């Protein structure tokens, strides 16, 4: 369980995080959504004890603040930047970070093997990371976060710059981790990822948490209505509705419809409605 209470952090005159509170339950996949500069990274840095909040508290699994090393050991982090050593092999990276996390001897060897298997790079374990593809590096980045078997995972944009195949592979790994009962905090720009993976989503902008709920509830509350777009003999019609099926039936009855499309509300719409801006405009 991860609890952030009334967090506030300023850098000079810029308020990076303003009175942010959230509680992430054990086994939950929580998505933190927001454009660049929204305060996601500052929030993550405070959550792992790297930044001291000006105000507020962070509590990890009832053990206290992550500024304490044994509390930090409960967290695994996969930063957006590939935080691995390219001149070391995949196996050497995992052994090194495992040692840093306090693993020793046979337990370390077993965890290294498990992690290599889990992210499907066991065959390339002896090759230097600089020879890996972008997707393999991303998976190794994830494996390093998991090497010490942490109950809480912070994944910061884990699919940036990877091919669709590797992205799907990462999604599958996250699904497995969810089934294992790990708590996952997932920051991303990609709403479809958040919609697919997250149980709940928090939307941040300019340091403030604008909304937080289950994806469906957020969409229902802030996503607006569905839009039915139909092509008819006399042109195209766009109808916003809460009952797209009913609208389509009526259009069919009236005749002349040659084609149609239904745009359902999504998190992009939620963000647009909450901020007046598109998520990827930033």
């Amino acid at each position, binding site marked *: 369980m991860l609890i952030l209470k009334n967090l506030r952090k300023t*850098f000079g005159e810029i308020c990076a995080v303003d009175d942010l509170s959230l509680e992430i339950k054990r086994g939950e996949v929580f998505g933190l959504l927001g454009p660049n500069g929204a305060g996601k990274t500052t929030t993550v*840095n405070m959550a*792992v*004890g*790297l*930044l*001291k909040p000006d105000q507020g508290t962070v509590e990890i699994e009832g053990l206290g603040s992550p500024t304490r*090393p*044994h509390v*930090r*050991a409960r*967290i695994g*982090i996969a*930063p*957006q*930047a*590939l*935080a*691995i*050593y390219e*001149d*070391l092999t995949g196996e*050497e990276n995992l052994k*090194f*970070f495992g*040692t*840093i*996390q*306090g693993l*020793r001897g046979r337990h370390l060897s077993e965890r290294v093997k498990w992690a290599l298997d889990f992210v499907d790079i066991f065959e390339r374990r002896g090759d*230097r990371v600089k020879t890996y593809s972008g997707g393999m590096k991303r998976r190794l980045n994830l494996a*390093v976060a998991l090497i010490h078997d942490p109950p809480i995972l912070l994944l910061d944009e884990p699919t940036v710059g990877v091919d669709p195949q590797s992205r799907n592979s990462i999604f599958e790994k996250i699904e497995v981790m969810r089934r294992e009962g790990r708590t996952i905090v997932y920051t991303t720009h990609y709403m479809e990822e958040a919609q697919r993976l997250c149980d709940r989503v928090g939307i941040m902008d300019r340091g403030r948490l604008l909304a937080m709920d289950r994806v469906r509830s957020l969409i229902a509350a802030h996503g607006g209505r569905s839009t039915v777009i139909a092509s008819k003999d006399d042109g195209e019609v766009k109808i916003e509705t809460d009952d797209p099926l009913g609208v389509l039936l009526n259009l069919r009855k009236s005749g002349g419809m040659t084609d149609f499309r239904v745009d359902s509300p999504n998190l992009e719409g939620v963000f647009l409605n909450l901020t007046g801006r598109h998520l990827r405009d930033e």
Partner: protein
Amino acid sequence: MREIAAMALKDLRILLRDRSGFFFTLVWPLLIAVFFGVMFGGNRASEQASAIDIAVVDEDKTAGSQEFIEALDSGNEFSISVLDREQAFDAVKRRDAVAYVVLKPGFGEASRRVFWGEPPQVELGIDPARGAAAAMVEGILMKYASERMGQAISDQNAQRENIRSAREILAEDEDVTPEVRANLGRLFADLDRFMAEEAAYTDSADTIQSGMSGLEPIRVERTDVAGAVYRGPRSAYAITFPQGVIWGLIGTAAGFAVSIVVERTRGTLFRLQTAPISRTSVLGGKALACFISIILMSIFLYVLAFFIFGLRPVSFPLLALAVVSSAVGFVGVMMLLAVSGKTEQAVGGIGWAVLIVMSMLGGGMIPLFFMPSWMRTIGTFSPVKWSVLAMEGAVWRGFSFVEMLKPCGILVGVGVICFALGVRVFDWTTRAD
């Protein structure tokens, strides 16, 4: 501690795999040491020294002793300093001179005699460990004494005067038996006649000299000057290898300074800082890796210097002290440089610029003794100077442990202060990110 060791091992592994880092840490310093060593004459530098430094003590103070000193000075084998006995002893002890030569009272008078009495006596003071040098000095002294004897014999008038003087002494000596007196009387008479006849020939000196080979031209009494300390480089490598190590220090410090920024820019530092280890462990591991790299680089260079280039440091324990102190000093400098910028380019640029200036002023490029005094004064502020001094002190200056304390202490002090400052700034900047 295990985490610090893991950090250090990781950095050493990366260093070995980084070709440019490996080059500047090990290959470049070696090239510098060998290139300049060969350029300045390698091991021949000392052999080509034109003269052996000796101190001469004239206890006779006669025209004869003065002439002998002038003869020694006019040759190219010796570089003479005329000192009193105490100064001469100290000069050999400090190895400012290879040996001292005392011309004992009666030297001049004895030089004039050829056929009777004690030969001229000299005392040769030298380190007993330098047997070859002692033999060489003794041989050269013998050569000059023989030349003087030859000159004395070739002067027939002087020798006839000598014979007359000897016959008078013989006549007055009551201890001599009649038989010996008669025999010597006949010998002196024959010699006098021989000299008189030889004076008629112009080229007689060689003939006479050749007949004097059994005579003793000089008697050398050796005195041991134990514990002498050599204070000059025995070869060019004694200067260039410490300088090579300095380049290794610079390359290693610059490389590790950049590696800290690389950890920062590539995100691995973030990962390390969020691991259950302290910041001290993170930076301690980096410092340990830098320290070990410097030690290994120094050992590599000095072992090569010893086995391939014949470098023989005056003191190995003091050399170890110099290397360890230098490593501590430059680990601190590395840490301070690591926080001088936020990008690899900035730290690399600033790092090399600062280190090159330190090296220029501190004797890393030009040996300290070639520098003008004002530059040596400015160089006091460069840790390179103290590192060069410490290493040269152990390699060829023959510093005592007490003399080593100053440069080594300064290096350790610089290291500790710079490291503490660097950690402070690092802590402040990373927390503000």
